[in-house]
């Protein structure tokens, strides 16, 4: 990397840190703007978890990290935090969750996420070593293996986190209509498929906001506030740049 790229990277990280610090300091003053459907999705997710507790049906966490190098991607971190969050919220349930993973490395590290989640909820003694299941690295075979894992057993909510491609549509065929399907994929194919098959889908950067949605005080969550600050800043810059470009070309 040459000097210009290093500077750009460090500047972007610095801007992110400043924005996050500002959100943390002023979180009681700034309220999270409800970006399209945020409140609906938050309510839907909480309803899915409540449903699972009331019906004593587990939540199926389907982690679709296909390459082990993607473990350190945004999707990988989203999957980890999602598992940790669900583990904490569902810790006291009779059959809290089933976790299927498309990567051996993820299956290994997700155990730590489960352990941390249980510890946070003071249920650390309930941790079991075989809480996660490796279901194969091919996206389509992973879906098939995770479906066979759930065969004959009702599930309240299928949370798909990671990278799936179009194979996620198999779930719509395999699962009962009353089983909720939620897709938070970082690849464009799974987002498009989620729009036509899933009950709820996260588009673009929304998939990194899941832990904020599922936290107790999402309206003052610093990460959601920072996302709003950066989101609207980038949008403003893009619109201003486009207007300058248009008026520059027309000579106005």
């Amino acid at each position, binding site marked *: 990397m040459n000097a210009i790229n290093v500077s750009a990277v460090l500047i972007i990280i610095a801007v992110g840190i400043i924005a996050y610090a500002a959100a943390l300091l002023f979180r009681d003053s700034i309220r999270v703007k409800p970006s399209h459907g945020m409140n609906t999705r938050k309510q839907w997710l909480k309803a899915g978890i409540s449903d699972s507790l009331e019906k004593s049906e587990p939540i199926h966490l389907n982690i679709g990290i296909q390459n082990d190098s993607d473990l350190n991607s*945004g999707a990988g971190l989203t999957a980890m935090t999602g598992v940790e969050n669900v583990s904490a919220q569902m810790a006291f349930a009779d059959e809290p969750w089933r976790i299927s993973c498309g990567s051996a490395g993820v299956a290994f590290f997700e155990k730590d996420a489960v352990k941390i989640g249980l510890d*946070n*909820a003071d249920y650390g003694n309930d941790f079991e070593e075989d809480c996660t299941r490796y279901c194969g690295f091919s996206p389509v075979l992973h879906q098939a293996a995770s479906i066979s894992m759930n065969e004959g057993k009702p599930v309240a909510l299928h949370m798909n986190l990671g990278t799936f491609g179009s194979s996620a549509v198999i779930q719509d065929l395999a699962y009962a209509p009353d089983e909720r399907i939620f897709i938070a994929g970082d690849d464009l194919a799974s*987002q498009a498929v989620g729009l036509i098959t899933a009950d709820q889908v996260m588009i*673009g950067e929304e998939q990194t906001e899941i832990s904020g949605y599922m*936290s107790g005080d999402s309206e003052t969550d*610093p990460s959601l506030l*920072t996302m709003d600050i950066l989101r609207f800043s*980038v949008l403003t810059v893009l619109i201003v740049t486009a207007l300058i470009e248009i008026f520059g070309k027309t000579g106005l």
Partner: protein
Amino acid sequence: MKNGKRFLSIIVILLGILVFSLLIIDNPTADILQASLFHWAELLFAVLLFVSIIHFIISCIRSPLEGISSSVNHILAFASFLGVLVLGFLDGFESPQLLQTVLTVQTAVETSLAAMVSIGLLFALYRLPLHRITPMKGSFLAGMIIFLVIYSGVLNYFTENTIVSAVIQLLKAIPLGVIYGLLIGLAIGGLVMGIGFIFFGKNPYRGQK
């Protein structure tokens, strides 16, 4: 124990900073160190893959015996594993015949699953306007139809009209802009998440009980 975890966390963070530094430093020694670290990580994941496959096979054996779930899927998975293992030891794992057999079976299975994906997508598209329509999904469906029409070539008959031609060019440029927007959003989301965890000790579970 807590001090031990804190010490390990500090080691991990320092390693992460070291790897990041090696990526931006242009130096032969740094390149060698970086390559060594990545090679070590690859070996680690290879071991994890081996352990995960063994764990999967053990659960395939255990689940039907304990009556936990359906036998057929697990017996098939175990039988496939056993068959490839036995043939591999008999013929050698590099045997072209074994590789061809495995590839043939895998291709057949994945092709049928891909066909199921195609059928599923068509069925979901049919069902969407009947049962599951929302503004977002409706917009997606409308956009899909518009772009099918545009790229079908039907509108080529109207390209002499400058307004129609300009509108078509604009519509064709929109998907690329949307993709750029999505990628920028994903990058921002990953950055904010990483900053929250690394610099501000964000806990994904906020203690809701």
